[in-house]
């Protein structure tokens, strides 16, 4: 049974590490028929699958699309949504759109950043919490809004948010301790 040309290409060039996540990326590549203009879509897929865009993944994409790696990196670094560092266990995204801003989102970012000792845009040293900012998550009527691990939290004061995160981390600690004996 002869595989279609693109299939063969994907197989030949399959990632040597054997990491299964590359198989998911291969599927997306095939669906995109290895077209170079699908680069942005494929970067999205890669980030979804791997959580972030490592050099390894970028080079892999470049090879599969027959593009110079510099072009792939150039495109990826242009867009804000792509991230090159692995995020922490929890992602806390504070909306800094206008509606949230006029309702005090700046204080939410500042105080959260101080409380957990992590600058906006970065991850705590222990890798447990990433603090990001976003521009309008589309719930302006509920400003200020925070998206915590994908859940939208409405009308957040700095105190609300800090308490929420502390509680969650404490619960995890307790669970870990219990497990440890």
């Amino acid at each position: 049974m002869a595989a279609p040309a693109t299939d063969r290409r994907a197989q030949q060039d399959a990632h040597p590490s054997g990491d299964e996540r590359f198989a998911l990326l291969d599927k997306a590549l095939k669906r995109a028929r290895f077209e170079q203009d699908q680069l942005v879509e494929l970067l999205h897929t890669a980030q979804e699958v791997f959580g972030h865009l490592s050099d390894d993944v970028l080079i892999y994409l470049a090879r599969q699309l027959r593009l110079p790696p510099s072009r792939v990196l150039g495109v990826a670094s242009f867009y804000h949504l792509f991230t090159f560092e692995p995020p922490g266990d929890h992602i806390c995204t504070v909306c800094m759109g206008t509606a949230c801003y006029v309702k005090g989102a700046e204080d939410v970012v500042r105080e959260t950043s101080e409380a957990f000792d992590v600058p906006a845009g970065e991850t705590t040293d222990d890798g447990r919490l990433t603090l990001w900012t976003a521009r309008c998550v589309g719930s302006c009527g509920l400003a200020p809004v925070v998206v915590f691990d994908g859940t939208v939290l409405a009308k957040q004061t700095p105190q609300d948010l800090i308490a929420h995160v502390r509680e969650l981390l404490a619960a995890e600690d307790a669970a870990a301790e219990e497990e440890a004996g």
Partner: protein
Amino acid sequence: MAKVIDLDDVAVNEAEARSRYRWRIKVCSSTACDASGAGPAYRAVEQRVEEQGLEHDVQVVPTGCMGLCSAGPLVRTEPRGGQPTLFQEVNERVGADIVERHVKGREDLAEHQLDEGLPFFTRQERVVLSNAGRIDPERLEDYVAEGGYRALVSALRMRPRGLIETIEASGLRGRGGAGYPTAKKWGMLHDAVADEKYVVANGDEGDPGAFMDRAVMEDDPHRVLEGVTLAAYATGASKAFLYVRAEYPRAIKRLEQAIRTAKRQRLLGRNILGSDFSLDVEIRTGAGAFVCGEETALLASIEGQRGQPRMRPPYPTERGLYGRPTMINNVETLANLPDIVRRGPEWFRRMGTEVSPGTKVFALAGSLRHTGLIEVPMGLTLGEIIEEIGGGCPDGRAFKAAQTGGPSGGCVPASFRDLPVDFESLRQAGSIMGSGGLIAMDEGVSMPEVARFYMDFSQDESCGKCTPCRVGTLEMHRLLERICAGEGSHRDLELLEQLSRTVRETSLCGLGQSAPNPVASTLEHFRDEYLALLRDEPVGVAHG
């Protein structure tokens, strides 16, 4: 090949299916209500309906945004042939009560009701949003039952030129911000000669504090598809792209699903509705770059490149995607088309003003009692929107200014309450219509701070291609930071105004050209606030 769908059949069947239920309970399941707990409320309603054995009497319908997000989660009950009732802040318990006490027990539950006689609802005129919050966006039948795809049927019987003339007669202007006459752009693509032409729906919605287009795409995806198809037919395009920002995964999912359904019913794809006209539609996602809303940058992004603008001319209608003629229309612009075609341009012109006919959708936010998504006739005054629809500022605070147009717009002071909200009037007042973000600010907000906020945004989003914008916005932001910190001088303010002019006049694309607007408009209307922050005395003023 699949049989051509009979729209009237679908509508009749749908009406019949609905008439079997004595009640329909609509639960807003859109982003904001979701965030305030619509999920558990929905499950509570569904569960009680089941427990009470009401499945054959009561239909539970998940809908898009009902508008008044700040009072969510919202639920609307519609008894067959009776008066509907809207409920606010519906949690699990209220959801259960709605089924057990309101539907079954015929109690009013007055304490949970939200009065649909509020100006928030009665002052609106919903065209683009006519189905939002009313239908299940995931069902084609729901859209068809409301008259969907009828415009496409009649358009396919017209010549493309005739369709362009209809839109010209309606006076429709682009809702993406600039208000360019839609028919004029269509005419250019129509006249362009090429082996392939493209239409692009701009759903990038970059204004940070606005979600009009997201609502249209999520809550009524088939309307967007019908609009795109009409635009493509009128202009002779054979392929359409929907460019949607990646921050809107639900909109992307809904559109993808709608495309599949429409294709299956031959409302898209090859030989649409049995005609000679074919249209292929593809979704492309943005990746968080404001400048990609600009049309030439958007095209670069679709081609898989860095989203940097280029010089115009050539305009995209001459040389666009892959070097071929391409037309870009905003999502809301496209969503107006089905109703204009179906109800006629005269109907459309009866709304709005002479030069800005029709309606505009706004994301109403900020310091207001009622916030959410509204659609109003163009030309309604700022005061009517802020005070009547928005209910004014809460807690007795004084309304100070309205921000429109986001980082490309400006702040209109409270004294302009009689200003009609349309393209020209807003521009005269130093702002722009923009895509529809409308944020009310009260006395607690400092205007230089607002200008700093937007300049921070613009310097961050500048693509860096041209120096005036890249360096100018950075420098303006630095000056604003100094001023806001109380460390600025009169000289700094002078420099800021000079830079505003330079950046406006010498930047390559709209981002740079309009980035100084928030500064200019706050300086025009709130200069005192800047002066009060400066650390030195004006030069040349003698002290007595």
